[in-house]
């Protein structure tokens, strides 16, 4: 029985890794290409004031967009492709923990027969408020 469980665990682990790879690799390559074009600089420039609230560089906006529309794996691919400090990764991590994969997960929550708009507002609200606190406090401490 234990052996069976371990085998099934390995299978699930490989399946998950494969699923991750399918998302992370294309996103990572895409962002790497973007870095060699002016596009990333434009995005970074446009989002600089907003992302500054969290003490994050403007291009980190892409990470938040990918994480919230697609999933955490896409966001992680993008984080790895952009140069960030551990503190900035922690800030992004906390924001994305509260608010990610909004389309898919909201569909799941809807099955519970509760009104979903408040839950989306709660998630985004927490991401922004806690992200700001962690970003600002982290900047003071580092």
């Amino acid at each position, binding site marked *: 029985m234990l052996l069976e469980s371990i085998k099934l665990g*390995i299978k699930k682990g490989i399946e998950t*890794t494969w699923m991750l790879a399918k998302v992370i690799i294309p996103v990572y*390559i895409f962002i790497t290409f973007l870095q060699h074009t002016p596009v990333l600089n434009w995005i970074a420039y446009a989002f600089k004031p907003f992302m500054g609230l969290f003490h994050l560089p403007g291009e980190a906006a892409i990470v938040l967009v990918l994480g919230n529309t697609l999933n955490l794996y896409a966001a*992680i691919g993008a984080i*790895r492709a952009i140069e960030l400090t551990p*503190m900035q990764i922690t800030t992004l991590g906390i924001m*994305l923990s509260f608010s990610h994969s909004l389309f898919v997960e909201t569909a*799941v929550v809807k099955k519970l027969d509760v009104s979903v708009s408040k839950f989306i507002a*709660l998630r985004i609200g927490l991401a922004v408020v806690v992200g700001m606190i962690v970003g600002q406090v982290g900047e003071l401490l580092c």
Partner: protein
Amino acid sequence: MLEILKEGVLGSLSSVYGIAIIVIPLMIVLQVANDYQALNKIAEYFNFFIKLFNVSKAAIFPLLVGIIFGISYGAGVIIQSSKEGNLTKKDLILLATFLVTCHAVVEDTLLFVAIGANGTVLLGLRLIMAIGITYFLSKRINLKDLSVLENEKNKA
């Protein structure tokens, strides 16, 4: 052009590798815990949530499943339990509130730790916020409001 592609492929493969060495052992542990029904036993230690949030005993197991395994699994167990009629409307709302803010904590936290984030900060803040908000909401909702809500829903 080829240089950029090489940079992208190598970089992304090393990211996937870093995640694989965490995800595969994690899945083994979760699978063993699941097959040996460890969660049922662990659930008994979390009975303080019943008092804290003023929920039914039946809400504890789906809560733990969601926190550890993820929102889809949690929702699956919640739907199952509510079909059996063990959960009240208040339980449902509080479970959903907790789980949208805090789910799959093992996997999510480790994924970010694998790329250099501080895991204690991530997990700590997530748990604190989820417990705080659910507690606040559990004091705000009372049965009267809920029956009004349900009546409105029946009319609609």
